[in-house]
C-alpha cells in the first residue's frame, strides 16, 4: 500500500481543514494570524484530551475519566505554583497525571471489570480528588505559561499553541510508537488473544497505554491552567468532544487502527466549524446540534466506506 492509501483518512482530514480555513477566510476576510492563534489556543485542552483518549482506544479500551484527570492535574499545578516555581510544579503535575492513568490501567487489568465500568467509577474518584485538592477555582499560574501559548513563534502565522501541542504529543508518542511498546499496543488493540499468544505482555501493555493517556491528560490539565490562569476543579466538557474527535480522526473503537495525527486534526476541524458558525452569526446552541450531527454523520460515512471496500475486496 502506498503512503497515500495508508493515510487516506488523515490526508482527507487535512484537506478538509484547509478548505474550512478557506471558508472562514471567505466569511470573515479579517480572519488572519490572530484568528488562527486564538483558534489554536482554544483547541489546546481538546487536543490533549483527544490524544489521551486516542491512545487508550488504540489499545482496545476507552477511558471515560480523561476530563476528571485533567481537572486533577490543573488544580495540582495551580496549588503547587503558589509555593514553588513553574517547572517543578509542571513536572509534578505531569507525574501525577501519568500515575492516575497507571492506576486506571492497573485496575482495568487486575479487576477484570470492563474498562468502561472501571473508568466510569474512576471518573467519580478523580473528580472527587480534584475537589479535595481545591474546593473552589483558585491557585495561580506562572505568568510565562500563558505567554508560552500566546502569539506566534518563528514565523508569524505559526501559532505557538499549535507548536506546544505538536512538540508535547510528538515527544511522548513518537518514541513510544517506535519502540516495542508501541508495537505491543497496536497488537493488543487489534487482537488481544493473538498478541498474548505471540508473547506480548498484554496486561502491562494496557496499563502502560492508560498511563500514557494519563500523561496526556496531565498536559491537558496544564493547558487548561495556562488558558484560564486559575485551577478549576470541575471537569469541563472534554470527554464527549474527545470521543468525537478520536472517531472522526480515524481511530476505530475496538482498537488497533489509527494514530494520533488524525484525531488532533479532527479537533481543529471541530473547533473551526464552531468558529465558522459563530462568524456566520448562527445561534451558538445550533452549533451543538451541528457538532453532534457531524460526529454521527462522519461515523456513518466511515462505516459505509469500510463496507464498500470490503465488498470490492470480496
Amino acid at each position, binding site marked *: 500500500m502506498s503512503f497515500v492509501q495508508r493515510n487516506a483518512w488523515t490526508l482527507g482530514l487535512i484537506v478538509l481543514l484547509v478548505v474550512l480555513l478557506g471558508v472562514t477566510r471567505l466569511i470573515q476576510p479579517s480572519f488572519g494570524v490572530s484568528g488562527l492563534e486564538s483558534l489554536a489556543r482554544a483547541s489546546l485542552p481538546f487536543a490533549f484530551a483527544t490524544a489521551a483518549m486516542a491512545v487508550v482506544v488504540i489499545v482496545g479500551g476507552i477511558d471515560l475519566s480523561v476530563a476528571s484527570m485533567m481537572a486533577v492535574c490543573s488544580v495540582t499545578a495551580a496549588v503547587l505554583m503558589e509555593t514553588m516555581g513553574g517547572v517543578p510544579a509542571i513536572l509534578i503535575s505531569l507525574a501525577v497525571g501519568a500515575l492516575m492513568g497507571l492506576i486506571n490501567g492497573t485496575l482495568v487489568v487486575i479487576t477484570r471489570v470492563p474498562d468502561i465500568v472501571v473508568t466510569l*467509577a474512576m471518573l467519580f474518584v478523580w473528580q*472527587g480528588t*480534584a475537589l479535595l485538592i481545591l474546593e473552589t477555582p483558585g491557585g495561580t499560574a506562572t505568568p510565562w505559561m500563558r505567554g508560552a501559548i500566546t502569539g506566534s513563534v518563528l514565523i508569524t502565522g505559526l501559532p505557538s499553541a499549535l507548536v506546544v501541542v505538536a512538540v508535547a504529543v510528538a515527544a511522548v508518542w513518537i518514541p513510544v510508537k517506535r519502540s516495542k511498546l508501541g508495537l505491543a499496543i497496536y497488537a493488543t488493540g487489534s487482537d488481544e488473544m493473538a498478541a498474548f499468544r505471540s508473547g506480548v505482555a498484554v496486561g502491562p501493555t494496557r496499563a502502560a497505554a492508560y498511563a500514557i493517556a494519563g500523561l496526556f491528560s496531565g498536559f491537558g490539565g496544564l493547558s487548561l491552567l495556562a488558558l484560564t490562569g486559575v485551577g478549576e476543579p470541575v471537569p469541563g466538557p472534554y470527554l*464527549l468532544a474527545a470521543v468525537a474527535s478520536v472517531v472522526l480522526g480515524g481511530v476505530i473503537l475496538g482498537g488497533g487502527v489509527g494514530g494520533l495525527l488524525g484525531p488532533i486534526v479532527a479537533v481543529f476541524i471541530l473547533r473551526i466549524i464552531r468558529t465558522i458558525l459563530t462568524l456566520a452569526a448562527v445561534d451558538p446552541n445550533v452549533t451543538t446540534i451541528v457538532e*453532534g450531527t457531524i*460526529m454521527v454523520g462522519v*461515523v456513518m460515512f466511515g462505516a459505509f466506506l469500510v463496507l464498500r471496500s470490503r465488498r470490492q475486496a470480496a
Partner: protein
Amino acid sequence: MSDIHPGAPDHVPPLVRVGRFLKDNPVIPLIAFLFLLIGILELMRPGIISPFWAGNLIKFAIPLAMLAAAQVLTMLTGGIDLSVGIVATCAAFVTATLTPLMGPVPAMLIAMGVGALVGIVNGFGVGIARVHPLIMTLGTGLIATGCLQVYQRFVIATGSDIPAILEWLGTGRTAGLPNGIFLFVPFAVFVLWLMRFTGFGRLLFALGSNENAAKLSGVRSWQVHMALYVLSGLIASLTGLLYLGMIRAPSLSLAVPLMLPSVAAAVIGGTSIFGGRGSFAGAIVGALILRVIDTMLTLARMPEGARIALFGLIILLVTALYVRFTETR
C-alpha cells in the same frame, strides 16, 4: 455418564460452589449487600431507619431504576444508551412548557414522542448504519442537548406548568409508600416479562450472546435494534415525566446527573456490558444500593470531594467483587 467422573461434585471446593450459586442467583448476594449497607447506616446514625426513610429511599431509587432498565435492555445486545439522561430531561422540559399551551395530556404525548424520535435515530444508527452504540447515543445526546437549548429560546416566555397527575405520582404518598410505585410496579413487571417470557427478550439475549449466530438463525438484527432503542427512548421519556413530578422544577440538566449512575446501577446488578447476560431485578437492587450509599456518604459529613471519590470507589469495589465471585464479565 456418572461412571466417567465418579464423585466429581464432591471435589468442588466450597468457595467455588458458593460462586456458582451466586452466579445462578445474582440477586441474592446483592440483596444481602443492600441489607448490610442499611445495617451500617443504622449503626452510623441510630434511629434513622424508619418507614418514612424507606419510602424516601424507594422514591429516589425509582427514576434511577427506570433508567437502569434502559441500560439493561441495551446492554443485553452489547450496546449502551448514553442518551437517556438528556432524553429524560427533554421529555420533562417539553411537558412542563407545553402544558400551559395545550393541556397536560397532549404535552405528555409529545414528550413521549420526543423519546421515540431519539430512539428511532439511535436505532437507525446502531441497527442499519452499524455505528458503535456508544458513539451513536453520545451523538444523539449532543444533538438533543442542542435542540433543547434552541427550543428553550422559543418557549422562554410561555412559563411552565406541571401536570397534576405527575405531581401526584412524584410527591404524593399512599400508606407510607411513594405514589411513584404505582407507575414503577407495572413498569417493572412489564420489563421483567419482556425479558423473560417474550420472543423479543429472547432475541435481545441471542443478539448479545452471539450476533452472527443469531443472524444465521434468521434474526433480522436491525429490526430488533430499532425496536430496542425506541423502547429505551420511551423508557427514558417516562422517567423524565416522573422525575419532573418529583423535582417540580424543569431545567436544562434535570435528569442528566442520573445518566452515569444508571449505567452503574445496571452493572452492579450483574448486567454484562458485553451483552448476553443481564437482570433487571439486579438493576433495581443496584439502584437501591446506590441510593443507600448516597445517604451514607451524605451522613458522614465528609467534604463533597471525598464523597464523590468514595462513591466511585464503592461502585468499582462492588463490581470487582461481583466479577471475582461469579467469574463473569
